[in-house]
Every structure is written in C-alpha cells, then in structure tokens.
C-alpha cells in the first residue's frame, strides 16, 4: 500500500516541468537574496565604521597644528627685572610687538579689535620663554605665539568669513512670496507690493498725521500677504524705512486717510540682497569687524603666519581657550588611574582565578562566587560609579575627583575581565605539566606558582592589557566620582589630587561651546584611540609570540 503510494507520487512528479523549474529558480533566488542581505549588512557595518573614522579624522586632524604668528619682541631690560623675570608686564610687551606690524591702527577701539587676533595665552608663552632664557633679556627675539581660536579656525578654512544671513525657513518664505509675484525690483532695490489700509483710528486726535502709527499699518498690510500663517518674526522682511515712506506718502496726500492703497514697501537689507544678488550673506559673528580680516590677511601676506605641529596638544594643561588647551592633565590622570587599577586588579584577579581554577573545592560558596563574577561583568558601568560615589567618597570619605578612587572603581570593573582571561589561560596549560611537577614531589601550590602560572602568564597579560584598554575608555563611572575637574595647571599631579581622565576630558571638551573644541575633541579622541590600538597591538603580539600551543 505505501509502496504503491510512493510509486505513484514518484511517477507524478515531473522534475523538468515548467512549474518545477520555476520553483527551483525561485529557491535559488531566495538563496541569493539571503546572501545579498548578508553582504549588505556587512557592507553597512563597514561603511559605518569608515564614516566614524573619517569624520573623526577629518575633524581632528586640524587640531594637531596651531596657527601662530611670529612676533619680534624686544625684551626691554628696563621693563623686565632680571631677578624677577616672571613679574614683568608681558601683555604690554606682546601687544607692543604686535602693534608694530600695524602702524596705521589708531584709537583704543581699533586696537582692542586688533589684539583679538592674538591668543590670550600669548603673554604667558612669552613669560615662560623669558623665565627659561634670562640671557635673552635686552635682545630682540622672534617668537611664534598662537592666534586666537576664530583666526586659527579661519586659517584652517574650518569657518568661513561670510555666512548665510537667513535661515532655511526664511528663504523658503521668501521663495513663496516671490512665487506669488509680490516681490519686484524698483529703481535697483527690492520692494514688496502690498495693500495698506490707512486706518483713521490709528491717527490720534492730538498730533494728527504726524503722530499716526504707520508702523502698525505696515504690519497690518504685511499680514494680508501671509493670511493665516502669519508670525511676528516675518516682519523682519520689510525694511525699517517702510513706515517712514508711508508717512511721507500720506503727508503729501492727506486724502488717503481712510482708504486702502497699493504700496511698494522696501525690503530689509538681507532680503534685498537675496532678491538682487541671489544670496544674502553677513560677516561671521565670530569676528567683530572686516578690518580684522584685512589685518590677518596682511600678516599672512608678510609671511608672519605659520601653522606648525602643536606639541602643546600633548603637553599643555586644560584651558578655556581651545587654542591653548592640551591633554597633559588628562593623560597624567588616566595614567595614574590605570596604574592604580592595574596594581589592584592584576594581583587580585590572578589570585581569584588561581584559587577558583586550581584550589577551590566545588561547593555552593565557590558557585556563588562564580555566578557573581559573571554578573559583575554585565553590570552597567554607571552603577560602578554609583558604588564609588556612595561607598568610597561618602562612606569612607576619600577625596573627590582623585585618580586613586577612579582607579579603584575601574579595578572593580576590570576584575571580571582579568579573572575570565586568567582562568582560560590556566585551563589551557595541559594537565601533564601539573602531573609531572606533582610527580617530582612539588606541593600543589608549588605546582601552580612555579609551573602553571608562568606558563599561563602570556595569556593572563593579554587579558589584563585588554581589560586595561577597556578601563582606559570608561567614562561614566569617572564622571560620577567627579574625575572631570577643570585643571588648568599640571603642577599638582598626584593620586589624591583632583584630576581629569582622557575620556572625561573628551566629554567636557565636547560640551564646550567654542568651535575650536570640536577639533580639539576629535584630536583627543584620536589620541585615545591611538593608545587603545597600541595596547591591543601589544596584546595581539603577546598572544602570537609568547603563547604556546600545546
């Protein structure tokens, strides 16, 4: 019976029929589709990685150089005391030297604008130079001092001199009015045609036509152009002169009062430019006058502007001025925190792993410990920050913002990584090693300490470096214990001194409003990524060179 059924099915199935071929085709198409999805997914991931790195490099590369201006400063011995060189008025010296380039600049307000080209830190740079080279007092020295952030950005072509004066929705509004045919050019300037009702109620009894509220009439007229979409801010499209024009018109013909008339209201300057020239631009508000551009251009023409590699990015302390801000505080804070983290997590992690892997009896307590370690690895980092804040800072009264506390919190977070890596490395050591050592009479601890642990060390070190690399990038717990202190000098570096770490520095720079901090932030990120890549390369090297395959 079943044989017959199978027989008949086999007989009815024609593999070469149209339908069967179509089905096979469809099945292979589905297969190719799945492959395509896979390639598309990988392509998307790779593209996102590429975009991430390109945008960071693109934004960050500029911060590795600083625009500087060469000053020829006469270190006047009458002004600088050789005994106390730090106390002279360097601001005056620097400004005097800079002013000498522009003999035709006069007047206080012009001078003030001129000095805006120089960075606020120029005085200190000259002071530090003089303190280090007291023998140069009395000579004229040529020094490169940084220019202020807007000019740095300008020289690097990051910000433009002119920006669009009108926002996008204003331009859309303008285009809509143009479509309606409201706008036209009369006598070389743009006007908006509209109707205005010369409202008798707006002409006061006292004062008459002179005191009438023409401004309100113009606005009423404008309202008719936009109907229900009207917003007060649209009034800026009409020049302030419109009311005056209307007044003059009514004064010349008082019979207009009470009538609705067609008028041509002059456009405001930006809209006028937009109508006549097709674009409306204004000076970038970061610069206070066009003279500044001229002065800067003349410096550039005279070859006084340079854009050298900026070691200050690495060796300066933090600053409110982007052109002066450096990473020294962050680098030292991160180094100290990682040092504490390493000193705590490395021995504790190894001891825990060795105990659990080699000595611990299998019982409930060791089970609990293992589950605990697995769970700790998954606890969100911000919770470790809460622990640090509540326990280390509040209960134990440890100093806020200190690398010591940061390192302790990071150590707790790094422990699971090191423990897991160490256990894997210990597991990889073959039992024959242990048995041989036991066979020649070593105690169990001697077996572990003298034979197993040294053989597992490359694996342990690899895991430790990867754990430290993770700790280097951790931000949230450090924020909670306050390791984002603003430290404008690098003199007080210590385990219990307030400090900054590299990732928290990135966070606080990213929050700063100055444009220059965008590239500083990206540059700091590139430095951080550089360290991470270096650490991972060391880990890969250790793994490939030292780890033995059994």
């Amino acid at each position, binding site marked *: 019976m079943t044989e017959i059924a199978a027989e008949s099915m086999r007989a009815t199935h024609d593999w070469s029929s149209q339908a069967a071929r179509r089905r096979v085709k469809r099945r292979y198409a589905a297969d190719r589709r799945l*492959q395509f999805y896979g390639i598309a997914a990988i392509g998307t*991931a*790779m593209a996102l990685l590429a975009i991430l790195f390109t945008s960071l490099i693109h934004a960050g590369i500029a911060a590795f150089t600083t625009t500087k201006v060469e000053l020829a400063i006469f270190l006047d011995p009458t002004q600088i005391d050789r005994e106390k060189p730090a106390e002279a008025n360097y601001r005056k010296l620097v400004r005097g030297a800079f002013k000498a380039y522009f003999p035709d600049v006069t007047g206080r307000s012009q001078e003030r604008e001129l000095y805006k080209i120089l960075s606020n830190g120029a005085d200190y740079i000259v002071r530090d130079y003089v303190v280090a080279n007291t023998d140069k007092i009395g000579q004229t020295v040529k020094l490169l001092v940084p220019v202020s952030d807007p000019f740095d950005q300008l020289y690097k072509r990051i910000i433009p001199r002119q920006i669009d004066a009108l926002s996008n929705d204003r331009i859309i509004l303008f285009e809509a009015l143009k479509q309606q045919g409201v706008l036209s050019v009369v006598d070389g300037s743009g006007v908006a045609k509209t109707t205005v009702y010369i409202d008798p109620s707006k002409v006061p009894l006292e004062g008459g036509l002179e005191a009438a509220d023409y401004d309100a009439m113009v606005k009423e007229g404008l309202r008719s152009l936009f109907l229900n979409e009207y917003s007060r801010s649209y009034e800026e499209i009409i020049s302030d002169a419109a009311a005056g024009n209307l007044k003059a018109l009514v004064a010349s013909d008082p019979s207009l009062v009470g009538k609705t008339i067609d008028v041509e209201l002059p456009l405001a300057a930006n809209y006028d430019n937009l109508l006549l020239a097709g674009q409306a631009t204004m000076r970038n508000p970061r610069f206070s006058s066009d003279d500044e551009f001229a002065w800067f251009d003349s410096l550039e023409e005279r070859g006084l502007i340079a854009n050298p590699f900026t070691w200050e990015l690495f060796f300066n302390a933090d600053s409110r001025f982007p052109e002066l801000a450096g990473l020294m505080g962050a680098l030292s804070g991160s180094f100290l925190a990682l040092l504490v983290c390493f000193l705590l997590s490395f021995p504790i992690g190894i001891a825990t792993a060795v105990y659990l892997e080699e000595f611990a009896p299998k019982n409930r307590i060791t089970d609990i*410990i293992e589950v605990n370690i697995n769970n700790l690895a998954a*606890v969100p980092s*911000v*919770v470790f920050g809460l622990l640090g804040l*509540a326990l280390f800072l509040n209960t134990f009264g440890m100093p806020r913002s200190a690398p010591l506390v940061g390192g302790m919190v990071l150590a707790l977070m790094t422990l699971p990584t090191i423990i897991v890596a160490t256990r894997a490395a210990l597991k990889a050591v073959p039992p024959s090693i242990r048995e041989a050592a036991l066979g020649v009479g070593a105690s169990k*601890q001697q077996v572990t300490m003298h034979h197993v642990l040294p053989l597992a060390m490359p694996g342990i070190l690899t895991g430790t470096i990867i754990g430290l690399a993770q700790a280097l990038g951790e931000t949230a717990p450090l924020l909670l214990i306050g390791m984002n202190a603003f430290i404008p000098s690098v003199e007080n570096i210590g385990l219990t001194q307030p400090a900054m770490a590299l990732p928290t520095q990135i966070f606080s720079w990213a929050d700063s409003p100055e444009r220059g901090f965008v590239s500083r932030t990206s540059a700091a990120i590139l430095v951080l990524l550089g360290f991470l890549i270096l650490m991972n390369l060391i880990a890969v090297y250790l793994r490939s060179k030292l780890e033995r395959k059994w």
Partner: protein
Amino acid sequence: MLSYLLLALLVLTIAAYYAGLAKARSFAAATGPHKSHHSLAGYHGAFVAAWAGIPSFLLVVLWLLFQGPVVDQLLIASLPVERIQNLDAGQLNLLVSEIKSVAKGNIFGEPDEVVLAAAERYNSWNAIASWAMVASVLSLTVVALFVARSMLAPRFRARNHVESITTILMITCSLIAILTTVGIVTSLLYETMRFFSMVSPLEFFFGLNWEPQIAMRDDQVTAGGAFGAIPVYIGTLLIALIAMMVATPIGLYSAIYLTEYASDRLRAVVKPLLEILAGIPTVVYGFFAVLTVAPAMREFGELLGFSIAPNSALAAGGVMGIMLIPFISSLSDDALNAVPQSLRDGSYGLGATKGETITRVLLPAALPGIMGGILLAVSRAIGETMIVVMAAGIIAALTLNPFEPVTTVTVQIVTLLIGDTEFDNPKTLAAFALGLVLFIATLVLNVIALTIVRRYREQYD
C-alpha cells in the same frame, strides 16, 4: 606622610624576608644541607615577611578608612551644643565642611570663633591620628617581625604556614567579587530607602511626571520636584528599541554571511574590523552622534520636510545600534557555529539549498543562542551611558516619537549627580533609586539570557 609610611613598611617587609632567610641559612649551615630542616630557606623568609607585612598593611587600610569618620564624629561631639542643636543634618554637614576648609587654610570671609577653634582642633586631631598610625603600624611590624623570626626552627613547617597564608589571601581576593556585589546592592538599597522615605514609591514607579529639580527658594513653583519615572523608562526603552532595530538585522545577517557563505579570507578581514566597533569607547560614539549623525539626520529630515530634534531618540539609538552590531554578530556567530555539522549535512542531503538550510534548519536550531545574545545586547543598551548622555535629551517627555528628544535612566543618573553630592535631598537620592532599577533590570535580563543560552546549548553537547 602616607607614602613614606608605606615605603617604610615595604622596606621592613623586605628586611623581614632577609632576616628569616638568614636565620634559616644558619640552620642549614649548622646541620648541613637537606638534612633535618623541613622547609627551604626561602619559605622561612617568606613566613617572616608575611607576618611583618600583611597585618601592618591591613592596619593601615583600616586606619585610613575609619580615621576620617571617627575624627568627624569627635569634631561634631566637640562643637558647643547651643551651636548645633537647631541645625538639621544638611546644615550640620555644611558647618563641618566649612570647618574642614578653614582647617585646610581656605578662609573665605570671616569665620566665627567656634569654627576657628574647631578647625584648630580638627587639625591637631588629624596630626595626632597620623602620628599614632605611624607609631602603631611600625611597632606592630617590628614586633611581628621578631615574634615570627623567633618561631623559626629547623623542624618548623614554614612552607605549610606560607601556603596556608597564600590560600587565605587567595580566598580573600575571590571574596572581593562578592563584596563588590554586596557593596553595590547595599549602597543602592540604602540610598533608595532614604529616597522612598521622602518620595512615595507609587509616584516613582507609576508617576507620569519627571521634574527632579529642587527648589532654590521656598516659594519656587517647582518646589517639590516631581519623581514619576515612567517617562524616563519609556525613553530608555524607546532608545533601546531603536538600537536593537539597527543592530539586530545588521548583526544577524553579518553573522549568517560570515559563518555560512564567506570565504576564510573575507572572514579573517571582516571579523577583526567588526571587533573594532566593539572596542571603541562609548564616549567616542557619543561624540560621533553629536558631530556627524544628528546633524545629518536633521538635514535629511529637513529635506523631507519634517523636523528632527538635534538630540532625537533616533540619533542616540541609531549610534547605540552601531555599537551593538559586533555584540550581536559575535554571539549569533557562536550560536550558529554551535549547531552540529550533521544537521547541515542532513539538510543538504534532502536537497535543500544553502539558504533553505540556514532559514529552516540552522536558525531554528540556533534561535535560543541568538535570543540570548539579543537579550544581552538589550541589557547593554539600557545600561549604556555616554552615548545617551551626549546625544539624547535631558527633559523627560512622555513620547514614542523617535524624532523627539527623550531621556533615559542613565542620563538622569549622570545629570542628577554631576557636581552635586549633598546626599540629603530627593534629587540626588533619586539617582540611586534609578540605579537600583537599572541594576535589577540588567541583572534579570542577563540571568534570563545566560539561562537560555546554557539550557539549549546542552542539547548538542
């Protein structure tokens, strides 16, 4: 002072080692090598060093932990009663910190006499405590050194003693993992209880209004602050959902392609590149979201004619999704690889195409592992902090619109605690309540995920 003390302790410990070593060598010289003494000379040294070093070091740690609180208590007890009887806890804290800052030499304005006198007392007590620590630690070290050294004898089982000390040390170290968990749970619970004594749990769990500002003046409108955390949870889930919608398809399809279709060469290139995504610190992703993704989205939205907020849930969630891609792809990779080859062979034997084998055989078989991976990624997403702190909003809006800014649990924790550490108002304590919720949520997700993964892996082993 402390570093010198620790240095002295280190020197003494090394000296103790050599003292033990020398004594043990003198036995060996007296009795001849390998004759009658039990342990190698090094173990005798290590024994003395351990006794000299470890108890003293523990004493230093304990002293440092408790000196501050004890001196604070003494300080408060020494203040004149009429000065402090009308102060609440916060004002008392303020007074104590004023005294401390005066004691450090930071005098602003004209502190009153009580404060000046207290600061003087504070300084002198601290000095006494420090010197007492040095004296007691050093004397403990020296006494322990000599006692331990006097115990050495040819038949003394130094190795066994040292080994049991090592074992105790190792057990102590492995207890640190438990202590950390206990520390997290107790500190979160304690602060949360204090929070719930000020704000009703009902409001916190079911309230729809989250405005944790506290009053600067008594007559301010927002005086009490509102602590209904539902909008915060909704925002967290919305961002996590967006992140998973980005990460799951990309991660899963990448894993399918890499395990089943890709050549070894391609796999060798792509897998490490995906791992790079996992190694990038989250603060970098946050900045990427602010610098590139959010402006790009806003322009795209403008192009289509609707507005996307600069700190929209979409930007934060999308970038978080990028971060989670390698997470999902590597866990799915593991799950797919764990499916035995025999299942593949059986499917091919029946005439299935590769695609059919994957969708009808491998994916169902690997589903528990993949689900576990997705749950782990969700737990990552709700615990992720820096991306949302930088790219998501602060205002808690009750919305599911991905183009609007929303806030998350982690954002609130960070914003509530940055720069403000007075622990007496519901605003800072609310951060701990949120932290507890976050801790429990991630813990539950992880336990479920690991259970699923473990239970179904056994089927094939």
